[in-house]
């Protein structure tokens, strides 16, 4: 425990960070709440009027909202599933004695560090282009008609891009968790006659349960707001097929300039994120000793 003097100094040093974050949290949020109660369109300035909860009603009953909600759930759910279902075996593989393991690690981790706009465009053009893309060429080799991804299966395309970017994250987390597994526990199991599969099912998987939960929670928080990949490839379309909540709010705000509605939407997004955050903070808090 620090002495009196250091306590006083410490409080002072903490203030800027806390104050800034407080302002960052409260001011925009307060403004969003305020705007959400207005009928306010940037193309029609001066005509703002108070409409109470009507924006929410309008936003939540808008078929576009329901579509975007569905898209969001599909996107988040699919990416989570892919990254974990592929991440676990990948992590296990990287935990093995592999020659040149560091280079393989670098290859597996790289996609996470590529900026989203680059990832999206590389996939859209070089890989998924229906005429000159690599996948198109591979399909013709096996005699299958190449898929026009961004017209016929746009959501699937977006899912692929985002999953590619987040797979390294899941793999790295799970690999870290695997490497922290108690070796002696595994040796004891071996002395007790357990084979590799048994050890995996009864020791490794339970040990991974917690990191998998963490991966799910954190990925969900960040996946709810996937934006750049959609912005740069499909622009939310065709129609609404790849519009998630984040993109919907964006398009209402900066394409339709409907501030009121976009603000209402923004608050809905905040509420959803808060629910996830609540659970994540609980998990983090349990691990924290301050």
């Amino acid at each position, binding site marked *: *425990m620090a*002495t*009196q*003097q250091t306590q006083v100094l410490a409080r002072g040093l903490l203030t800027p960070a806390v104050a800034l974050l407080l302002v960052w949290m409260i001011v925009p949020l307060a403004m969003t709440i305020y705007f959400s109660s207005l009928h306010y369109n940037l193309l029609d300035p001066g005509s703002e009027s108070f409409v109470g909860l009507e924006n929410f009603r309008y936003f939540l009953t808008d078929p576009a909202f329901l579509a975007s909600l569905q898209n969001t759930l599909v996107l988040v759910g699919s990416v989570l599933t892919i990254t974990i279902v592929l991440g676990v075996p990948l992590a296990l593989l990287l935990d093995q004695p592999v020659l040149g393991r560091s280079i393989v690690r670098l290859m597996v981790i790289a996609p996470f560090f590529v900026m989203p706009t680059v990832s999206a465009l590389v996939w859209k053009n070089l890989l998924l282009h229906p005429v000159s893309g690599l996948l198109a060429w591979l399909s013709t080799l096996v005699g299958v008609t190449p898929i026009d991804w961004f017209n016929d299966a746009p959501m699937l395309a977006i899912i692929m891009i985002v999953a590619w970017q987040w797979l390294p994250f899941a793999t790295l987390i799970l690999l870290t968790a695997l490497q922290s597994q108690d070796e002696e526990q595994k040796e004891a199991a071996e002395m007790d006659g357990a084979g590799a599969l048994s050890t995996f099912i009864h020791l490794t998987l339970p040990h991974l349960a917690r990191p998998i939960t963490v991966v799910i929670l954190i990925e969900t928080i960040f996946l709810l707001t996937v934006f750049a990949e959609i912005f740069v490839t499909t622009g939310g379309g065709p129609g609404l097929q790849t519009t998630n909540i984040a993109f919907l709010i964006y398009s209402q705000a900066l394409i339709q300039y409907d501030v009121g509605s976009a603000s209402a939407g923004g608050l809905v997004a905040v509420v959803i994120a808060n629910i996830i955050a609540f659970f994540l903070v609980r998990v983090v808090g349990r691990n924290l000793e301050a």
Partner: protein
Amino acid sequence: MGQITLQGVHKSFGQLDIIKDANLDIEDGSFVVFVGPSGCGKTTLLRLIAGLEDVTDGRILIDGKNVVNVPPAKRGLSMVFQSYALYPHMSVRGNIAFGLKMAGLPRAEIDSKVAAAAATLNLTPYLDRKPRELSGGQRQRVAIGRAIVREPKAFLFDEPLSNLDAALRVQMRMEVTRLQKQLATTAVYVTHDQVEAMTMADRIVVLNAGRVEQYGSPLELYERPANLFVAGFIGSPKMNFVAGPPADQHGAATIGIRPEHLRIAPEGGGWPGTVSVAEHLGSDTFLYVDAGALGLLTVRGIGEIHLKGGDRVWLSPDPARLHRFDKEGMAIRQ
């Protein structure tokens, strides 16, 4: 000059009282050891003197001046930590010189003092090494060097030997005592090992649950323990305590007799019992005797005693060495 006095020192964390009303007078130049079981507050008391913790109440006087509101940097004390706490990014020379640098001494003076301290502790060949390149014993000496080079009013030691292996510990014990006598600086030393306490101290403070149980020389604590706790804590193996009829006979609630003062009496001439375990060390023999209603008694004999498990034996305490305690556990003096 390094006279330290504690007056009514009290330390609590919220509801928990860690130190309850400590009063001590530590003479300049003496080697005082704080000893006690885990959690008794000995390290806390040391840290209060150092200034690393604030007192809740009371005064701490160094050479007559109350330092309770003085930060540790300005108290003129040196501390040797249990983990040595060496600065990993500085060389041995840098570690030892740091305090002098903080005091603003001129470069030449720092260099000569560091050289002198290093010579005293046989660290001269290691001056340019980093702590991670040193062994445990060497790191410990650097920690001591860092403490002595500042010529403080007093040294504070927080269990400095507990991370060393047994042989090194014995050797360092002697070195620390020798050094302290040579420098004639007050030393306050915390340990949980009562053998260290007995061999190194001029006077010992026995602490229990935040209370000072007794403050006296090793021999005083051994021959005239003030209460049951001190009697049981000092001396290894522990003193034997007997309650009931034999105690009543001596007019006490409990009597105590050290294993080395329990004689093996001729048949029928003492407390009867059966040897449960006999340990033969050659130099000593330890007998653990089941004395029925009197409990398990430990006997220590010099040299070899030819008894084994299952043997019947009679034990008689040396009356001159019998300790008597009243029902509050306090010693009854003649």
